């Protein structure tokens, strides 16, 4: 493929944004149609990626590489089995998000859609970058449209929410930047070559001490993004205040950037540090699962309930990632996609309710099923998908995740299995309070059932839910090679230090190597060459 498809998928939305700039702001409908068109074309282009993707190859495909600013800063894009699906998730959900905003956003529609398109570009860029500098640029670039989306078109506490979101994320990113720069200098000292390429950094073997600090830098940034306990508190505020489409993209895609970061950077770059911090991280993930579930149980606002459920689900994903086995990691990636669909759908559902009721508080509803029967079916399916009912997407991901966790630690799996009960509890209880029972609030009687546009954007999600639940092979088989390679990197590297040095000699070695990083790196590259 000589056509730079990845660049196209990444930057075509930017072209859309630019086009929108030149169209007068009064022509809101034209803006809307154009935005949908651009996102749909991007989706179509990304489907080409799917069809030509070879699931048996572990290396990135559709690679585009060219020099950019020099000094190791290159323009390097590529997708592999891990990032392919995240890109597709983004391009799939974007048109849906735009469609859901049709009547929701009435003022400054032009700017809103421009930001949505820029957001799409930023997100896809994060997933396809293979150069750390480029990755960082996209990572930060994605924050800016989100900041505006929440801050301008959000709810009453939007300024607080968006500042909290941006500042917390940036705090983490800053530490990651420092870590990147340190890696950069290490690589230069080891090889004399300036590089910021991920695959070059994979070759670095670092002293465990150093690894620990660098790992923390990256891990903190991603942990805030996931969000892992105790860095989760920006999420409920951001979700409650964000407009529907903002919440959808935030929950469905942005959160996955954190887990993706762990899979792509934090884990393979620093396997020894990972081993050291694994108990702590696993514990935090487990706490996230249970704590998120319990907090979801007592929320009064539907959106914050779904937000906490996201904390819980992401906790399960992270715990599965930390299981470091095939089932767990594939389950985690699958669950990322699945959670993207189910939580995205739930936020769309809440949006539909909000457009009618202008409130998201559970107590203001009740008996909606009698008034909106078609909607109640859609709500039910989305809810069950989040609960993890077999036949829908949530089950496949959940069972693989739990099994992966089980393989690495039975105790953790037993505790994590409580999510099966908790999710049913908080979701069914919420569903009952909102949809069942008699109608008590007069406003509910004015609700109209779903219109064609709403059906139009929910039906594709429902179809995907069933597809993912009934025939997961489509998705799983593309991941195998890349996940196997990742696990190889993480596991086999763990042994380099252990087997080569075994115990006290390691410490001695550490000390001498610590003062001679150039020797260390040299040795590492020699080892690597010997292996290959």
């Amino acid at each position: 493929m000589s056509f730079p498809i990845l660049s196209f998928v990444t930057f075509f939305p930017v072209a859309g944004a630019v086009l929108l700039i030149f169209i007068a702001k009064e022509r809101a409908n034209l803006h809307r149609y154009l935005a949908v068109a651009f996102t749909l074309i991007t989706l179509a282009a990304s489907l080409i990626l799917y069809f030509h993707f070879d699931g048996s190859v572990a290396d990135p495909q559709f690679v585009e590489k060219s020099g950019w600013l020099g000094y190791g800063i290159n323009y390097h894009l590529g997708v592999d089995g891990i990032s392919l699906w995240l890109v597709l998730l983004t391009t799939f959900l974007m048109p849906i998000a735009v469609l859901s905003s049709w009547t929701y956003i009435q003022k400054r529609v032009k700017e809103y859609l421009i930001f949505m398109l820029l957001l799409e570009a930023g997100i896809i860029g994060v997933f396809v970058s293979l150069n750390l500098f480029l990755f960082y640029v996209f990572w930060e670039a994605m924050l800016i449209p989100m900041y505006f989306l929440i801050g301008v078109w959000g709810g009453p506490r939007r300024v607080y929410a968006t500042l909290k979101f941006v500042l917390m994320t940036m705090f983490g990113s800053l530490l990651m930047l420092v870590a990147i720069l340190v890696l950069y200098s290490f690589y230069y000292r080891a090889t004399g070559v300036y590089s910021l390429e991920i695959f070059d950094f994979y070759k670095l073997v670092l002293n465990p001490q150093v690894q620990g600090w660098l790992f923390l830098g990256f891990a903190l940034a991603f942990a805030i993004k996931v969000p892992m306990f105790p860095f989760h508190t920006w999420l409920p505020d951001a979700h409650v205040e964000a407009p529907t489409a903002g919440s959808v993209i935030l929950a469905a895609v942005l959160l996955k950037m954190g887990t993706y970061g762990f899979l792509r950077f934090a884990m393979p770059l620093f396997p020894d540090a990972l081993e050291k911090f694994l108990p702590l991280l696993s514990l935090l993930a487990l706490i996230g699962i249970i704590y998120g579930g319990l907090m979801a149980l007592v929320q009064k606002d539907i959106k914050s309930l779904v937000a906490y459920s996201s904390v819980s689900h992401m906790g399960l994903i992270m715990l599965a990632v930390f299981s470091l086995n095939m089932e767990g990691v594939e389950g985690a990636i699958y669950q990322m996609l699945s959670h993207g669909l189910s939580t995205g759908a739930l936020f769309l559902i809440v949006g539909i309710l909000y457009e009618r009721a202008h409130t998201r508080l559970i107590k203001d509803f009740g008996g909606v099923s009698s008034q909106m029967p078609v909607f109640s079916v859609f709500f039910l399916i989305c809810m069950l998908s989040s609960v993890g009912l077999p036949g829908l997407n949530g089950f496949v991901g959940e069972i693989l995740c739990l099994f992966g966790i089980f393989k690495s630690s039975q105790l953790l799996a037993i505790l994590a299995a409580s999510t099966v009960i908790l999710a049913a509890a908080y979701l069914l209880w919420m569903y009952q309070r909102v949809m069942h029972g008699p109608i008590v609030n007069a406003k509910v009687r004015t609700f109209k059932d779903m219109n064609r546009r709403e059906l139009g954007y929910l039906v594709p999600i429902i179809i995907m839910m069933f597809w993912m639940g009934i025939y997961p092979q489509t998705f799983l088989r593309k991941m195998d090679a890349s996940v196997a390679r990742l696990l190889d990197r993480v596991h086999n590297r763990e042994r380099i230090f252990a087997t080569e040095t075994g115990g006290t000699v390691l410490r001695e070695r550490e000390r001498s190597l610590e003062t001679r990083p150039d020797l260390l790196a040299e040795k590492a590259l020699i080892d690597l060459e010997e292996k290959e």
Partner: protein
Amino acid sequence: MFWLIPLFPGASALILAVFGKWLPKKAVSWQACLSVFASFVVSVISFFGLLQIPAESLPLVKTLFPWIQSGSFQADLSLQLDPLSSIMTLVVSGVGFLIHVYSVGYMAHDKGYKRYFTYLNLFTFAMLILVMGANLVLMFVGWEGVGLCSYLLIGFWFEKHSAANAGKKAFIVNRIGDAGFILGIFFILLVVGSGDFRAINGAIQGGVVTQGMATLIALLLFVGATGKSAQIPLYVWLPDAMEGPTPVSALIHAATMVTAGVYLVSRMNLLFTLSGVAGQVVGLIGAVTAIFAATMALTQNDIKRVLAYSTISQIGYMFIGCGVGAYAAGMFHLYTHAFFKSLLFLAAGSVMHALSGELDMRKMGGLRKYLPLTYPTFLVGAIAIAGVPFLSGFFSKDAILTRAFAQGQYFIWALGLMGAVLTAFYMFRLVFLTFFGQERIEQQAKEHLHESPRVMTVPLVILAFFAIVAGYVGLPVVFGEKANLFGRFLEPVIHPGSEAHLGLSTEWMLILISVAVALCGIYIAYVFYLKSPQTPHRVVARFPFLYRVLHNKYYVDEAYNAVFVKPLVNGSRAVYDHFDLRVIDGAIDGTAAAAGFAGKALSWLQSGLVKDYALAFLLGVALFLGFLLF
């Protein structure tokens, strides 16, 4: 061919779900019922086909496609046919068909008619997947599927708080069991490497599974079974489930879904046999539940609640059978119970239908005059469940109790016997209160009193017929070793353990004791409710405390609420308010505030005066120079 069995109701459910709105009501009725009938036909054909196949080539497995596959986790969409699943498919599709037909009459005036049949078909589909799944994961899919349909059907009249609550309760309590089930599956995957039943049985027979591991796995699976089959401690959802339409209670909460736990234990019989302890636990819990539920049935005034507790109790018997190693006996009771219990529920529904929805027995009485078909069929069901000889219940209950005694489980046997007395008593209490004695019917109901339409009574008659004859395929050993056709049919699946044998005279003795006990119960009920109707009031007056405890179901629901639910919710709320909002958010907001404070604290440096800035320059330069020079 057999793999088509679940397909018919599944396809029907799908069609109804998507296109139901536009289909005429009659078409919906015909489609729904015929699809289940088609399943039944194929089940029968498969059953006869199965008889031809030698035991070694069982089970027959058809893999439709690989479903989930990742690393060592492999779950295919494979359906299997063997004697055990064959019996289950016959029961599910047969009884299911009759209940579908009955529902056409019962739900005729309900505005959710089409939705009802969609759910009912979906349920049948899920249940068939459950019993035909060739591996544990697929079985679990069916397991959850029936849980979903149970939720949807219990909460069918969701405008009522009680119904919505009941549905939610059922789903969540089931899920607690499911967590155990999932862990059990994982252990099996870890030890055996596959969830496929053939592989599991092969592994157990090959000695791969240790006794300790077998116990652990069996107990975990049994936790799941207690949830689905409403045994102690997870039975609390079943009485509330009576909020759903009566045919639902008949199908789901009597004949099929609640028996899934018994099916699971029977399917995994090798595992339970290997672990001796697990079998003990199963038997004990079954026995205790049997008595416990029977005592609660004694004082209920709601006709359906009595039947609900009765179901819990009878399933307890099935687990007694499994627990003492007599899995075939347990399955036999499952099979007969399907007939007479669904008959009882449908007949009760018929009574309710006749009385325009009344279900309080205190407002019934003397109905046998008005319901010439419902009454006799109900009576047949009551006689069957009480264990009166010549009807099916007698054969199956007796089989269980005899085997329990034979295995030396005298305590369990005694409990079972006591339960039998109570069963006979409360069943006939129900019969006498409803159909005999003084008429206490409300005036308004009396005006509309009528026997049910044929579409409802015909299934009753058919079920009554089976309630009578179904037992003859499993005659006790006293009639010869070969008489137990049922047990022999199941042999390829239920590997007979060490079956102790009793002497012929002991067997007859036990039979006589069972009969005596049953007749005793009936007689006592007769005395209490027909001969001297003041007796119950006098007894209650003498033991008010006991009555209150029984009537309030031992306050178990209240206890669960106080010990688990309320603390969890209130505790979480407290944690949310005080920890999440105050501590974590506080830390973050505090950091922001600290930054602001630091800014303010240093702002005095920006005085706005040129002189101050110039001074700063000067000091800076001086410092710098000083640094350079020294």
